[in-house]
């Protein structure tokens, strides 16, 4: 598989073309706005988190490249029904996938479809694209949830 084929896998192209959970939840309990000023990626992430800390619904909307958009689609698909703690752990595992050489089969199993973004590792300039929505959800789940965050 060429490096490009590894990056632009069918699943990614598919989620890019038809992103799941694309929109804004209204009402929502958590919100964050993630932007990458350099390439113009710009997404809003909204969540409905139950009182006992379960992500009941999540959505994202905005514009950006295939990597950031498919990442948003895959993320929102992956986290529904998970606890906040599990999502944050998943986020760490996912970010690890993007940059570390020590990803195990176990990691990949836990990440499931999300692991398709591993091809980004060979494109360091694109890591921030894949990470953007995850940074946003991390931000949304933190105390200071109404801020705009930016990755560069």
């Amino acid at each position, binding site marked *: 598989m060429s490096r490009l084929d590894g990056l632009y896998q069918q699943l990614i192209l598919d989620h890019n073309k038809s992103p799941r959970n694309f929109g804004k939840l209204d009402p929502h309990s958590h919100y964050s706005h993630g932007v990458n000023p350099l390439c113009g*990626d710009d997404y809003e992430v909204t969540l409905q988190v139950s009182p006992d800390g379960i992500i009941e619904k999540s959505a994202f909307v905005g514009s950006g490249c295939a990597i950031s958009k498919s990442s948003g689609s895959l993320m929102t698909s992956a986290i529904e029904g998970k606890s906040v703690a599990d999502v944050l752990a998943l986020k760490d595992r996912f970010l690890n996938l993007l940059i570390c050489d020590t990803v195990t089969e176990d990691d990949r199993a836990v990440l499931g479809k999300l692991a398709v973004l591993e091809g980004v590792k060979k494109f360091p300039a694109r890591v921030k694209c894949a990470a953007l929505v995850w940074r946003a959800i991390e931000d949304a789940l933190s105390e200071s949830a109404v801020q705009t965050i930016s990755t560069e």
Partner: protein
Amino acid sequence: MRELFDKTQWIRDQFPVLKRKVHGHPLVYLDNGATTQKPQSVIDRVTRFLSEEYSTVHRGVYLMSQESTEFCETVRSTIARFVNARRPEEVIFTSGTTAAINLAATALGKSVVTPGGEIVITQMEHHANIVPWQQVALATGATLKIAPIMPDGSVDLEAFERTLTPKTQIVAFPHISNVLGTVNPVAQMTAMAKTVGAIVVVDGAQGIAHHPVDVQAMGCDFYCFSAHKMYGPTGVGVLVGRYDLMDQLPPVQFGGDMIETVTFEKSTFAKLPAKFEAGTPPITEIIGMGAAVEFIESIGWNYILGHDQAILNYALAGLETIPGIQLIGTAPGKSAIISFVMDGVHPHDVGTILDMEGVAVRVGHHCAQPLMGVYDVPATIRASFSVYNTESDADGLLSALQKVRHYFQ
């Protein structure tokens, strides 16, 4: 056209970096709007200076320092001739276009712009020609007014004229747009601005290497450019300014060489150009810039203008064959800067795929976010051509774009 491209090979051979491979492909360098590559003559001049002649300027009674001083002052004269300034002292060395515009803006902001005054720029500005003026407006209580462009990316001259009022104190616009390629009618716009008595600042970053510049014929008060976009070094640029105006303006940076006398109580300032050149100048870079001007002159404007149009038309014809491409900027007579978007593909993805094919283009907002807003795109892909680009570079771009279509039907 054949002949043009033969000369291009002769030019290419002067640029060692063009032999480079990227991801296994020959480099197709199409980010000339951001910065141009350097010919051997510029590299050699810099190397020779550092190896055999290096010394500081102005302050030495010794031979090498006198020589350095003379080298730099000769470049000042060369540049004055290159842009047809009235005298060498009209050429102020800065660290680049951004610094040149900031210098002009700060000095004018302190002396010319008043509360209630108006500063006019256009919709096609680079951030370097927006943000400094916003700051001047903020600091002085003046208003920043924006002259609109037409859908093809040329300035709407009628609207531009209506934007000008007796309150207009500064008018600033680019010679050539770094996104659209539009070549503005500088002399005409300046003449309009002069009817209301405004001071005219031209952002020449994209102009200087692509069009002959005659500041007297243009009539503008300031013309700003960077060496690194005209085959010269980074770290140096020029503010060309009208002598009688600059003579009245306050200095902006303070330190050695720009003073006449300093006491702890008070300092008096030197004459032009020293007044605006505080500290040790970018000596090596100035000398390299001189070699860059000589390189441009060795090629000649005939070739440059002809090649620019030839490569533009060739590339545009090719782009027509690729489905789903929308050009941003189609003004008549535009320069060889092609911005476009592709249906269903974000520019960032295009950039990555092109890079894997060895094709270096810029994707993003090109430091012109407001202009992206005008065209309602988050970003564009920009292929910007230079004297050493060939038909085969354009072909490389086109086949790489086919590759994009392979992933994103």
